[in-house]
């Protein structure tokens, strides 16, 4: 991997949400939604980010786009810092000025999970897809309209849909509209936040295929956030597993699924139901629920549910470190444990 191929380099990212209570809105606690995340994304790759609800994966995506203000850490992104900039230098999104952020928005976009709430019911499809161009003040009205028609075609809709309203469309079509909007500014990076999990099974495949085609066509880089391991495995080049605000493991897809190094990754894989009645998975049942991010366990956050936990796990937080070729894990016992991955068949 060449450092010059790095599009995004996130370091020690933290986001703590204050919990306020009472008439005076005193801060009584904080939710450590993102608690020290390090990751990099290369040009034109897809990095999958998986985890269960409440693990902080969505907050991570939003914070990288600075839709949520980070509490700490840096988000280095290769993007333009002025109108004339060709975007060769790394800029820290976390500390960029509002004007810089507005320019950066042209290079980083988002696709949402919910295809219903993500489209304003009072705007036409054309207006929705063209809104980013309008906000950025790019192009004249007629240029915009022409571009919108191209976009709609690119995402598999018909140009005469431009005058219709969102309620006339199905979930899958709405998701295509959301994708068209995200692509309007021709971004480098697209954060796809659970883009298929609200869709019907037979529609999911359409959208996954579309995302892959568009990546090819526009040279996109994806941060693909999902809770569905099968989807992540299918679409990602590399995968990061998150648990309680931290990345516990990150590796190339085949490496992670074939040779997991973190007990949580192992359990997560074994819990996924496989659509084959003869596939007799040996389930590793995790005990209990994920603890509250308001009050995470001591030491390794995963130790109360981990079947390999030892004294050190309860006492000390493990260091996030490399254990092989671009394989990162945060587990005290990563070297000694031999965990079960999915055998390739």
């Amino acid at each position: 991997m060449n450092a010059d191929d790095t599009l995004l380099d996130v370091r020690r990212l933290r986001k703590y949400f204050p919990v306020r209570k009472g008439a005076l809105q005193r801060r009584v606690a904080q939710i450590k939604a993102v608690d020290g995340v390090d990751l990099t994304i290369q040009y034109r790759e897809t990095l999958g980010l998986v985890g269960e609800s409440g693990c902080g994966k969505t907050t991570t995506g939003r914070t990288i786009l600075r839709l949520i203000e980070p509490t700490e850490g840096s988000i280095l992104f290769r993007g333009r810092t002025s109108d004339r900039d060709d975007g060769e230098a790394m800029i820290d999104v976390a500390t960029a000025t509002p004007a810089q952020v507005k320019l950066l928005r042209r290079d980083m976009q988002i696709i949402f999970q919910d295809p219903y709430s993500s489209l304003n019911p009072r705007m036409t499809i054309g207006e929705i897809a063209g809104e980013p161009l309008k906000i950025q003040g790019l192009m004249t009205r007629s240029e915009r309209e022409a571009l919108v028609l191209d976009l709609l075609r690119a995402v598999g809709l018909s140009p005469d849909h431009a005058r219709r309203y969102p309620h006339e469309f199905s979930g899958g079509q709405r998701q295509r509209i959301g994708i068209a909007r995200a692509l309007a500014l021709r971004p480098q990076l697209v954060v796809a936040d659970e883009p298929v999990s609200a869709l019907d099974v037979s529609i999911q495949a359409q959208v996954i295929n579309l995302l892959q085609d568009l990546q090819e066509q526009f040279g996109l880089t994806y941060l693909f956030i999902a809770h569905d391991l099968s989807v992540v495995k299918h679409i990602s080049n590399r995968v990061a597993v998150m648990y309680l605000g931290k990345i516990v493991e990150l590796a190339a897809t085949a490496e992670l699924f074939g040779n997991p190094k973190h007990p949580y990754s192992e359990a997560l894989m074994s819990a996924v139901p496989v659509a084959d009645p003869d596939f007799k998975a040996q389930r590793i049942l995790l005990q209990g629920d994920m603890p509250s991010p308001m009050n995470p366990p001591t030491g390794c956050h995963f130790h109360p549910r981990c079947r390999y936990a030892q004294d050190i796990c309860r006492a000390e937080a493990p260091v996030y470190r490399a254990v092989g070729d671009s394989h990162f894990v945060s587990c005290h016992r990563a070297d000694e444990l031999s965990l079960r991955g999915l055998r390739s068949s």
Partner: protein
Amino acid sequence: MDFLRRYRRDKVGAYFGAILLLLYGVALTAQWITPADPMAINLNEVFAPPSWRHWLGADQFGRDILSRVILATQVTVKITSAACIFAVLTGVTIGMFAGYRGGWVESAAMRATDMLLIFPIIMLAIVVVVVAGPTETGVIIALGLAQAPQFIRIARGVTLSVKEELYVEAAIAAGAGRAHILAHHIWPNISTPIIVQATLTLPVLVLNASALSYLGLGVQPPTPEWGQMLNEAKDHLITAPHLIVGPAAALVVFVLSANLVGDAVQETLNPKLKKQK
């Protein structure tokens, strides 16, 4: 157009909508359609019972009650419309700003609104009349201010919920500023619930306007108002019970129509509610 087509499906709403339109027509043309001068005193016809000359009879000064009821319609429509507009403007401005700005501005505005909501509307109106005096403007401000908290709450509520919508986040992700979001996303979503609330508020305003004038705190005589006419009629309940018929009927029909129209508008604009009810 689509609204009218769907609205007309609701039969009750359509009929009472027609009645309400008729009443507004009467209000707009009151000067020209009164059969007699509503102010003209005629001591020969004091307490005259209903007749061809005075369809609803005459009052303690021999004034034609029908004409006074018609003029009172105009007075009521004028006051309540003005109060409604006043309430909508103050309410939407404060609510939208508070909701979008958040922080202490919002807390302060909402604490104040909560305080006001503890008090019944008529009480608030009475207090404002104490300050502003029982003039037409005073009554308008009183009624409007008393209703403003409802609009503040709705405007703030919609602003807060729209602010959380993903399409707003999408706009922010595209670099949109506060002005763009308020104008393109929040404002268009506020208009529907505000129209619904305004139509639902109308009958309440009418009731409160006439209650104030019944108490003698509203429009002052000789200008007629339904509540005030009923107050006067009360003193002659034994000798001339027919005095209450005209103003009471006009008031109840107006309020009933306005209520039914309000319900119909709400159901037309919020079809979800209908499925529940």
